[in-house]
């Protein structure tokens, strides 16, 4: 039997519901008169499991999971990975260097734009956004060890 898109997503929701119910063991359920911190999450997990099951049951007519196309998948993964790397170093090397490096990666490596344009956008954006957000709006943005 070929798994269908809705069946796969419905099963994922059921698995999530089971996980929530399992993790919820740590919290007291209380009583009906005085529901505890575990009461509502359990109700919600039951409801999530039920809707997940219904999606699985109704999912027979949806397209086959194997036929699902992810043409932008690789690029999307690279974008998320680059943002994750930037987030990881944001507080240690500072806002301006991180943002400039991220833009150099996106424009220079991923999009292969002309080097001069890449440099101008990367430096210009990081400095201008620092001025607008950090100086004008007074949001304390992270500075690296060199004050950047």
């Amino acid at each position, binding site marked *: 039997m070929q798994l269908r898109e809705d069946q796969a997503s419905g099963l994922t929701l059921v698995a*999530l519901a089971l996980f*929530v119910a399992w993790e919820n063991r740590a919290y*007291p359920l209380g009583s009906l008169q005085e529901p505890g911190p575990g009461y509502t999450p359990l109700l919600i997990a039951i409801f999530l499991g039920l809707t997940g099951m219904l999606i699985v049951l109704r999912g027979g007519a949806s397209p086959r999971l194997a036929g699902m196309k992810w043409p932008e998948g690789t690029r999307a993964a690279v974008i998320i990975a680059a943002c994750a790397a930037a987030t990881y170093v944001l507080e240690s090397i500072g806002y301006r260097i991180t943002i400039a490096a991220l833009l150099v990666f996106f424009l220079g490596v991923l999009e292969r734009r002309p080097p001069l344009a890449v440099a101008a956008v990367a430096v210009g954006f990081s400095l201008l956004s620092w001025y607008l957000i950090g100086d004008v709006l007074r949001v304390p943005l992270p500075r690296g060890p060199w004050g950047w």
Partner: protein
Amino acid sequence: MDGNVIQNLLLGFSVALQPEILAYAFIGCIVGTLVGMMPGLGPLAGISLLLPATFGLNPIIAMVLLGGVYYGAMYGGSTTSILMRIPGEAASVMTCVDGYAMTQNGRAGAALAISALGSFVAGTLGVVGLMLLAPTLAAWALRFGPPEYTALLVMGFFVLAYMSGGSMLKTLAMAVFGLVLGMIGIDAMSGYTRFSFDVLALSDGLGIVPVAVGLFGISEILITAGQKGAARVARPKLRELMPSRTELRQSLGPIGRGSVLGFLIGIIPGSAHIISSFVSYGIERRISKTPERFGNGAIEGVAGPESANNAAATGAFVPMMALGIPTGPVTAVMIAAVMVHGISPGPTLIQQQPELFWGFVASMYIGNTVLLILNLPMVGLFVNLLRIPYSYLYPGILCFCIVGCYSVSNSVVDVWIMLVMGGIGYVLRKFGYDLAPVALGLVLAPMLELSLRQSLALSAGDYLIFVQRPIALTMLVLGVILLLLGLKPLLTKKKDWRDQLDQVAEEKP
């Protein structure tokens, strides 16, 4: 309109006409127009990104600025739909059909003018509705206790599931997924920290901003990853903006109907502005004596949907202001914006903070006028933004998302949450799930849990409390009726209006 309303409105204008507030209303409208025009940046992303900047402002200015961005984005979204057949934001999908056809027929200027005029009329009529309805609803809501609030929220979820496009089951599942996310953090009644997995930052719960920016902003960029180049954009001249007398006459009815319909749909939870534009288009086509013109540049196909989505944007403020309940992610973020200042929207807000409510109402009149005056002459300037290649645009948007989320609480944890939610949002969209209910579930979870547990404590554990109180019973019955209506196509396999909405979404460019 009684004297009290006029007196309060005058109070509002005395607040809104202060130079500082006028300036922020102006900035909000401009920023909103720009974010509304940019594919991938809708009103929600724009408001979320500006949210941290409002923390240092007074709450009236914060509301005026964010409100300006919201309805400015509604105006801006139509420009790309008409000129490029790209909906700047989801509510403008229907405008693409006849708006772009008009551009191809050389009537882009008239389409833009009618769209702006319709948006202005609808926005203004919507504010009148908000002004009259919100105080009445708030006074009525003072009778609400925990059972009524529980019933209202449960009804809201069923209405949301029924009204949202696509599968009702999937919408409900997403709302429940949002409720699961809302369970993360400290339980207000017992002090237990739940589902934090020993991550200290999670004990405060998930903030609406990183979740919303991730779900809507980041996922959009991931979905469109790989898109190349800047599209060709028509650039109408100022003298071409004047619609003909026939076009004006043909637009009056659709603008009036769209305004009333949009406002009423806007009050209901869900993606109201999207649904309202779809319903308005359907009605206009159905009542037209020449339905064959629709799809080939019928001005009614622009006037109706554009008026409806703007009126719906204003209607969404009614439950937000009067009940403290958001009808969608945008109003949820706006509630977060005023709560930062220690103000909770709800039935007592209008009485306790009249300057805030009436100042906001008055600023919406001003904002709509500013948008009408600004948008038409400056449309040529604004469309230059659309000439920026997407390869330059999306890295900038990503950087703004990162800095915006970081700024909310100066924490990289929020940025991590945004990235994770972006990834989840991308996968969910690939599987055909609507993301708005997730954000709504997240915001409503604490409110629902608190009112449910208080109701049970009040009734000594008796669930019959929800059917013994007339207001709660009425709301639950309404919710169940809608649930059954929504489930009917599942049992009969008959197509309903949601399938038609799906069909339109698939046909969209």
